[in-house]
């Protein structure tokens, strides 16, 4: 086998893990948010807010990790708006999410205008995991990445455990499946929904900030270019399971990486068509996933998108 071809392939897949992490973080967050019964379609806006404030924080402090944190906090704050309107005021979740997307795009392009094309001097750098990174093929792909990627692996495991093995997870799932029953059992429905919506926002912000603090350490208006929407679609693909979100994230990361490699390699395929590839794939995947979910009767939290009102008669 041609060694250069092998190394290119490893490079593609290492890139896939990076791109996959951008999608994984918001998808993971949305899996949890939707499990609590709240539909947040504002991921695109939250990612933009995370990306911009992450960039800003990294720029001002010179520390990309501080930037990442700021991006998460900012996106979490924006998600709190969604929680307030949808949970407390029982507003239409679809339209509120849409408004959140418009808000994120508008806010970041307003404040970000003067930062366009400026670069970070210090971005998040890869840190190879001792021993594990020495494994052939898998080492360079999965364990020669940066801390955020490792954190994402760990978060998947933590949230999977939390969701299916602990009381926190039982409460969370119960709230999304049957809020009235959860309420009757003394679970704080409103608090649960707030918590997971805001946490989902923070993770979406992390996904955005990961772009500007690590992968593309500069600012452009609309730098997330629709990844938030792909993440929303991936939640269906993941069937509301954190582990599947990992698979979905890396699968789509691979498509993204492949597309970029093909563009860089200057194939005959038109670059517009290549750029379209992730969206087309997502479109097809969401159809297939929806059909599977329906046939197998699994997944969708029963009360997704339905506000809960206790004293309604």
């Amino acid at each position: 086998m041609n060694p250069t071809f092998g190394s290119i392939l490893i490079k593609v897949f290492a890139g896939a893990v990076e791109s996959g992490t951008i999608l994984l973080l918001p998808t993971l967050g949305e899996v949890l948010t939707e499990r609590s019964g709240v539909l947040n379609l504002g991921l695109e806006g939250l990612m933009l807010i995370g990306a911009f404030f992450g960039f800003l924080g990294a720029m001002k402090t010179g520390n990309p990790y501080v930037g990442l944190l700021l991006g998460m906090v900012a996106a979490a704050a924006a998600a709190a708006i969604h929680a307030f309107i949808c949970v407390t005021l029982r507003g239409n979740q679809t339209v509120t999410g849409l408004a959140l997307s418009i808000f994120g795009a508008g806010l970041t392009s307003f404040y970000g205008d003067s930062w366009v094309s400026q670069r970070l001097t210090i971005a998040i750098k890869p840190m190879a995991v001792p021993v594990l990174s020495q494994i052939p093929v898998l080492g360079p792909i999965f364990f020669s990445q940066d801390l955020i990627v490792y954190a994402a692996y760990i978060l998947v495991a933590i949230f999977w455990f939390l969701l299916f093995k602990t009381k926190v997870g039982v409460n969370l799932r119960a709230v999304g499946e049957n809020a009235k029953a959860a309420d009757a059992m003394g679970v704080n429905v409103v608090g649960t929904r707030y918590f997971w919506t805001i946490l989902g926002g923070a993770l979406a912000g992390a996904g955005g900030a990961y772009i500007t603090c690590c992968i593309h350490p500069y600012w452009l208006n609309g730098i997330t270019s629709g990844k938030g929407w792909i993440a929303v679609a991936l939640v269906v693909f993941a069937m509301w399971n954190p582990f599947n979100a990992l698979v979905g994230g890396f699968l789509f990361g691979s498509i993204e990486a492949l597309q970029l490699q093909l563009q860089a390699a200057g194939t005959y395929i038109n670059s517009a068509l290549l750029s379209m590839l992730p969206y087309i794939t997502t479109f097809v995947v969401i159809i297939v996933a929806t059909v599977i979910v329906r046939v197998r009767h699994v997944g969708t939290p029963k009360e997704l998108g339905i506000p809960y009102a206790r004293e309604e008669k």
Partner: protein
Amino acid sequence: MLRFEKRDKTPVRLRVLVPICSVLLGLFVGSVVMLFARVNPLRVYGAVVKGAFGSAYTFSETLVIAVPLILISAGLCLVYRMKFFNIGAKGQYIMGAICGSYLALFGPATMPRPLLLTLMMVLGTIGGALWAIIPALLKAYWNVNEVIATLLLNYIASYILWYLMYGTWRDQRSHGFPLSKSFALNAQLPRILPAPSRLHIGLFFGLVAAGIVWIIIRKTRFGYEGRVLGENERAARYAGINVFKTIIIAAAISGGLAGLAGIAHTSAVLRILQLEINSDYGYTAIIAAWLAGLDPLVAVGVSVLLAALEAGGYQIQIVMRVPFGIVGVIESAILFCLLAGEIVTHYRVSLTRRLTA
């Protein structure tokens, strides 16, 4: 602690008060955002008003923006009433522009102007309608989430336009810029005011469309079926309403109007196909429809107001170097307030203090 009590009916004054307060609050939020950037909001709003209504010309430019908003929001009023959340007006607008432009760019040059223009508009409408029928079919047969589907179709439509503009539709003499050749006079939708105004007869399309959609909703069997369906799908099936057919027709009307908006704007205002064809009106129109309480006639007025905001937004970007993003902030803040305010139309809200035991 907030306390909610269900209302039997909504007082009319609340239905008026909530949107008005939302607009005011939206402007207030915009001010706060501007103050953080050390921009004087009063000066900006002054410039917006001047940029939108300052002269006959600027007002006509406001109306130029209002035309696509009126057309798209009329269609959205119809589908949203059926709880089909089409947010793909952007993509439908683009597909309308592409389909209609095909005739302008590659159609027989000798075709008489009225015929050519009619065919362009029809083709644009069909293009937009087809782009909306895809997610409607997916929703009807497989229950695919229409929000995600229409959104992804927006991106796909954008890249199709991109593909064409860098590919076969690019003018040889454009020096590599992604521009088509200019539309021949025959393919230009007539403008109705003397230059430099770009206001065109699409305004009448919009007004007529809004009127027709209003009649459809209020007076026809189809509109009645749609309202029943939107309120209660099971009752609709029980009443013998064909749910699939109703959703698909409504989606087609909505997409068709977006497509018509796309080709009309391209043909009358831009007179060229290019990457930037103002397709974001597809999102602004959502706000217009929602702010209008899904009434297409009210949406006409709301469209003009939002168009003024956008027209003023372009102005302040050029004159005061205030980024256009502020328009998005204000629009979304208005929408947030509106969504939040809907609670008081359904419930009596009061603050209660915890009783001491």
